């Protein structure tokens, strides 16, 4: 076909050649059932066309990526595990409940010390030195006097 050329001359109809060729190769078949041919073709294509309209579920959309994502995920998980093992853990902070409990226990101890017969001495042992704290000294003295 590489030797194909062009011609500007429209071939003139040749009835004798046409008749001879028609005799040798036949005329086009008359009365083809076009509706049946179209219906058969449509029926054969229906499954393929339906496949084009079907909503693809998420797991099928992921399938093409799975071959890449799964190894990547495995590598990332292994790296995270190694990092977690190598990194030193920070000291655990005190729980809030422990602080509250300690505070409450401290208050109870102070109250007991104040209520004790030798008042200010016990308070001093529990709460530490009270020097230079005029408010604390005044409160402790008032409670001690009241207790007596």
């Amino acid at each position: 076909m590489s030797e194909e050329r062009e011609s500007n001359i429209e071939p003139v109809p040749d009835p004798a050649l046409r008749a001879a060729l028609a005799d040798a190769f036949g005329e086009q078949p008359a009365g083809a059932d076009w509706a049946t041919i179209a219906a058969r073709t449509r029926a054969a294509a229906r499954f393929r066309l339906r496949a084009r309209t079907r909503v693809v579920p998420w797991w099928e959309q992921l399938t093409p990526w799975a071959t890449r994502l799964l190894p990547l995920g495995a590598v990332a998980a292994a790296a995270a595990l190694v990092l977690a093992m190598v990194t030193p853990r920070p000291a655990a902070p005190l729980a809030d409940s422990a602080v509250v409990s300690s505070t409450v226990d401290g208050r109870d101890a102070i109250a007991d010390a104040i209520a004790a017969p030798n008042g200010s001495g016990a308070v001093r042992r529990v709460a530490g030195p009270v020097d230079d704290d005029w408010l604390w000294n005044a409160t402790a003295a008032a409670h001690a006097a009241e207790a007596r």
Partner: protein
Amino acid sequence: MTADDAVDAALVERVRGGDVDAYDELVRRHMRRAHAVAYRLLGQAEDAEDLVQDAFIQALDRIDSFDIERPFAPWFFRILTNRGLNMRQSRALRAVSEIPGDTASHDDSPEQSAEREELRTRLREAVATLPERQQLIVQLFEIDGWTSAEIARTLGISDGTVRWHVHEARRALRAALEPLRRQEQS
């Protein structure tokens, strides 16, 4: 692109989305021409129907690779002719041997019948020596009366190339029939 090509392109877009009606319309628009070409390739009406259906299904399978900016017909008919040539080879040309059969008039004398049969055989042999595309073009042009423009649009080649094929085929066929003509004259 012609208006017909634009309609085809719009239908192809819908077919890509699975539109059955669009596919049906596309089939109906090209079915008759496809059947004519298929018949010229295979020489049997039933085989031609099978080929047409097969080509439309193949086209659907490859519809995503079709360039929407180009005409649909040449793309589709290339699929059809390739499939048809494959089918023709695989079926060992059973069609050609079954073509017209006995179309001789019953009024023919034995000599006339023999002459007609001789002419048929020579013509078939001569056509078989032509390039495959030329065989198709000469039959569509000479027997089926397609214009060079129609053939060109269908096969995706220029009018001038179609005309050249027709001239070449005529020259080859006349040369093949020349001995018969001399016999008649003598």
